[in-house]
């Protein structure tokens, strides 16, 4: 009884967000899960889940949708390719975001807020507009493309097409997701005790060793958090491949969107979505295990 009394405040505060999550996350997920076992409707959407025959209720469910997925390697390749795109995007974000976050975290305090503001400044304009801007930058007529191709031809190669290639997709995804890497990394690096670096140097560590033995391991929680924030949305991305990618650079998100909106095959779209969610959960679980192992070892 006492426990209830002591925690009444917590309950009162936590039920609205709980309710929100149940209504708008758990319930839709459940609906999608059920939809994966249903037949497509004659004109798209979903067929009825059951019918009544001779006064008895008959469930009209199927495993066909899953079968279709498992029998067609093309879909698996697409999953794999999406994972590679998201992985490359994540690595590029770490490679670019880490020095940036480090620079901000080690700047004088009075400049840090301004620098963080600059990092999130792109959010002030619309996502699609920013992607279309890249379409112009990477387009054949842009100064950027001309400059790149001037170098490429000077080196004796054929001029390159930048737009509508996997490269353009990666560029766009890195651009959009970079702040999600920088912010958690900054939050981590900013908290580091700089006396540890003095101590390491005092005990004989070179600058390189100080980074790899002290700063890097202590920043891993930030790297993991940033990677999750980049990898997960990148994996399901469809707008960027749509706009910047060619026919060969579509991702699993494009296929899901196509199934749901264009083909209107909701059951199969649901199957793909479930697999995507399961994949993300699996990777997150693996990451958590690795992180825990790293802490021990």
């Amino acid at each position, binding site marked *: 009884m006492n426990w209830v009394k002591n925690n009444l405040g917590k309950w009162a505060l936590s039920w609205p967000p709980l309710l929100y999550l149940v209504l708008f996350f758990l319930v839709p997920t459940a609906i999608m899960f059920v939809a994966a076992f249903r037949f497509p409707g004659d004109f798209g959407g979903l067929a009825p889940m059951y019918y009544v025959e001779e006064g008895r209720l008959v469930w009209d469910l199927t495993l066909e949708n899953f079968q279709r997925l498992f029998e067609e390697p093309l879909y698996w390749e697409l999953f794999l390719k999406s994972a590679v795109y998201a992985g490359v995007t994540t690595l590029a974000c770490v490679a670019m975001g880490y020095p940036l976050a480090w620079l901000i975290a080690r700047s004088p305090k009075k400049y840090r807020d301004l620098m963080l503001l600059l990092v999130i400044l792109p959010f002030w304009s619309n996502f699609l507009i920013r992607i279309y801007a890249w379409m112009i930058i990477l387009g054949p007529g842009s100064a950027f493309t001309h400059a790149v191709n001037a170098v490429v031809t000077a080196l004796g190669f054929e001029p390159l097409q930048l737009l509508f290639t996997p490269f353009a997709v990666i560029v766009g995804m890195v651009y959009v997701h970079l702040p999600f890497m920088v912010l958690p990394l900054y939050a981590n690096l900013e908290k580091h005790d700089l006396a*540890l670096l*003095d*101590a*390491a*140097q*005092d*005990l004989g560590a070179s600058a390189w*060793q100080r980074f790899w033995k002290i700063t890097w391991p202590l920043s891993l929680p930030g790297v993991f958090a940033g990677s999750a924030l980049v990898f997960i949305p990148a994996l399901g991305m469809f707008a960027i491949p749509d706009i910047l990618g060619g026919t060969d650079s579509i991702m699993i998100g494009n296929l899901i969107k196509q199934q749901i909106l264009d083909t209107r095959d909701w059951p199969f779209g649901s199957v793909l979505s479930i697999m995507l969610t399961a994949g993300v959960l699996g990777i997150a679980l693996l990451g958590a295990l690795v992180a825990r192992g790293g802490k021990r070892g």
Partner: protein
Amino acid sequence: MALLEIKNVVKRFGDFTAVNNVSLSVEAGEFFTLLGPSGCGKTTLLRMLAGFEQPDSGQIVLDGQDMSRVPPEKRPVHTVFQSYALFPHMTVRQNIAFPLKMAGWDAKKIASQVEELLEDVRLTQFGDRYPHEMSGGQRQRVAIARALVDRPRLLLLDEPLSALDAKLREQMQIELINLQKEVGITFVYVTHDQGEALALSHRIAVMSHGQVEQLDTPETIYSYPRNRFVADFIGQCNVLEAEVVAGNGDGTATIEIKGCGRMRVALRGEVAPGQKGWLALRPEKIKVGRALAVEDGEVHFKGRVNDCLYLGDVTIYLVEVGDGVVIETMLPNSAPGLAKLFDDQDQVEIAWRFDAGSFVTE
């Protein structure tokens, strides 16, 4: 030749001089202490020894080698930081092994050396713990073990005990003395706690405003402070305004304390008649009694007890001798029973030998 020589070292921050022309040398195997009030430049001097700061002028020579171009990671010098600065993602063993790994020792030798150090600081069974799983005193010992493991020529300690409570501090002081004896490594120890400095050190450099005021053994510093600052800073001391009447030519001088009279005092150095200064006199060097026989070579006054401070082991009696001149005396409560000897307003006599105190200048 001395192990460490600091020659005319100056360090400025902007137009503030943190270390002002310090010269001193430290012998191999010595427990050397830099003692001084907060902000007097102790840490700055230590950081120059470690290599984190560069002197603006002057020279630091270690083992005959000029250190000015040697970065911290290349100096045979380690520091025990006040915050310990243990690596939180490494176990105690990994922390202690760190300097050896950096020096490129092979794994087998590292393991045995680490075990030896763990034994030295009595932490063998804690080797696999993380720093956050240890108490303050244990962390302290890990920090010391880590800094000693590859036998540096010099160990720098910046107020290593200040984060510990009084009991633990005393215990750690004893451990530090023993450890230093055992490993034979030269310690340069920084503290603002004069009691700690007196207890630990072979020699002490008393600093103030970036300068060394006196460099001597603890006994000499305590008994014969060289100037007013040292007398005031170390222990309890009567500092009475005085003026030299005449030198006596036998290593003593006659001085006059206003409102109190003339007396003889032993000298350490030269004085001139008319020179102003202070008589520095430790409370425990003064005899107090209801009636004292006047002995040869003693300075003798009648007075009245103004205040008593009963401290348990000792009682401090403030005795007013002349016109507004109050002298602090201290007697052990060694008699059986309640042991306090005098009360407020008691008439007493006090006396001290002419060489019990010293005449100090600014």
